[in-house]
């Protein structure tokens, strides 16, 4: 009788195994984005932290939630497959550095804007989370969309759209425009110089 029960239990475990092995994200995309934003807002509202500490803390969250490889891949678009893996890696690191340098001193500008979490759309392995930022200085709430990809059971951000303007798409066009007239290495150099300039002015 006891062996029967054990076998039944084993059978049930075997049935459940495919579901347990399937590494689909446990947290819903909207909950994940919400948790990341709430953590970020808590840092911004913390009066004990100095501006550079706030930036460092927020970048830790950004590194955990953004898949820079996916971002870089989409920014390069069709050229991603045309360049050598080392160049792809160089570009990924440089682009990440550039974006971070860009936002390094923008967190100080936070003035109590509220975030409204909207619907989510899942189309495995992708998902989209819609947000609205309520700010008094703009006539209407700002619509935002986070695009995420399922990476080993975790939703990672690969693009952010503000009022329908995709960050990835915008940079892709800018980078393509450089690549039309110059080499890949020159484009990397331009990006590096820009990142350095941003760091100096930060």
């Amino acid at each position: 009788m006891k062996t029967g029960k054990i076998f039944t239990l084993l059978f049930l475990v075997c049935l459940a195994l495919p579901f347990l092995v399937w590494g689909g994200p446990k947290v819903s995309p909207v909950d994940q984005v919400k948790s990341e934003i709430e953590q970020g807002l808590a840092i911004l509202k913390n009066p004990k932290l100095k501006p550079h500490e706030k930036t460092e803390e927020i970048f830790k969250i950004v590194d955990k939630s953004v898949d820079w490889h996916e971002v870089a891949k989409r920014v390069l678009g069709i050229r991603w497959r045309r360049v050598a893996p080392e160049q792809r890696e160089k570009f990924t690191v440089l682009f990440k550095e550039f974006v971070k340098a860009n936002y390094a001193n923008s967190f100080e500008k936070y003035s109590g804007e509220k975030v409204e979490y909207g619907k989510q759309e899942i189309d495995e392995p992708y998902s989209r989370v819609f947000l609205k930022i309520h700010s008094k200085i703009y006539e209407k709430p700002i619509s935002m969309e986070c695009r995420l990809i399922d990476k080993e059971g975790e939703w990672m951000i690969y693009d952010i759209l503000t009022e329908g303007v995709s960050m990835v798409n915008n940079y892709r066009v800018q980078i393509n425009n450089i690549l039309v007239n110059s080499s890949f290495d020159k484009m990397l150099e331009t990006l590096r110089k820009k990142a350095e300039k941003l760091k100096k002015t930060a």
Partner: protein
Amino acid sequence: MKRLAQSILVLGLGCFLSSVALAEGSSRLLLASADPAFLLPKDQQEMSPCKDKTDAHRIELVQRWEEEEKAQEAENQGKTIQRTMPDPFQPLNRGLFWVNDRLYFDAFKPLARVYGLILPKDVRIGMRHAISNLHAPIQFFNSILQLKMKKAGTVLCRFAINSTVGIAGFLDPATRMGLEKVNEDAGQTLGVYGLKEVFYLDIPILGPSCVRDTSGKVADTFMDPLYYLLNTWFYVGLYALDKVNEVSLTIGTYEDFKRSAIDPYIAVRNAYYQYRRQLIQK
């Protein structure tokens, strides 16, 4: 008489731009049937494998290009890759972009700073609501033209509530009642009926635009009852006030955007293209 002459001038400009739009559209369509790469914006045509190739190779190369694009599309969540809009007059537009940039930093921004010192923020927000409320007929007519009846109803209700309870539109109780501001214009109406951007235009003071949206702006002027009620100088003055008021409330936004760009001109052009596309799709 003066009003009639102005109307004829504006109408003429509108017709000219529309005819340019249609002519450009049809010629592009003919060329596109021979070479799909032509449909790509100028800066990306260079990337096309069709460049400097004989006809024998063209079809094969275009097919390969399309296959590669399809693969990329699949990679990009199955969504069509958004291209940027054609820009045949890029050198001229870059010059005008520089003019607008200087106008912003040397004229509008300092003016808006002084204006912001005189008027408190809440008054400026009220002013924005009031001016926007005055332009409600433009949004109403365009919603009707696009057969978006729910939006037309929202505009009507917002106008009635904000003009009365909202004290001539200075307050915005309608938004608190769940009636969010509608953003429709003739450029979007033309877009809804299939007219493409044709090409990019950077217009002094008005900023980024395209042939379709510039034609739309002309049409919007005719839809605006204020154009017929006010003296031309008052009408232009109201536009200037709206512009300075808006800049005073959003100082820093353009600066941040420019700072984040590798090539600010391309970044603004692409952002404008994407923004208008999503407005038309809404």
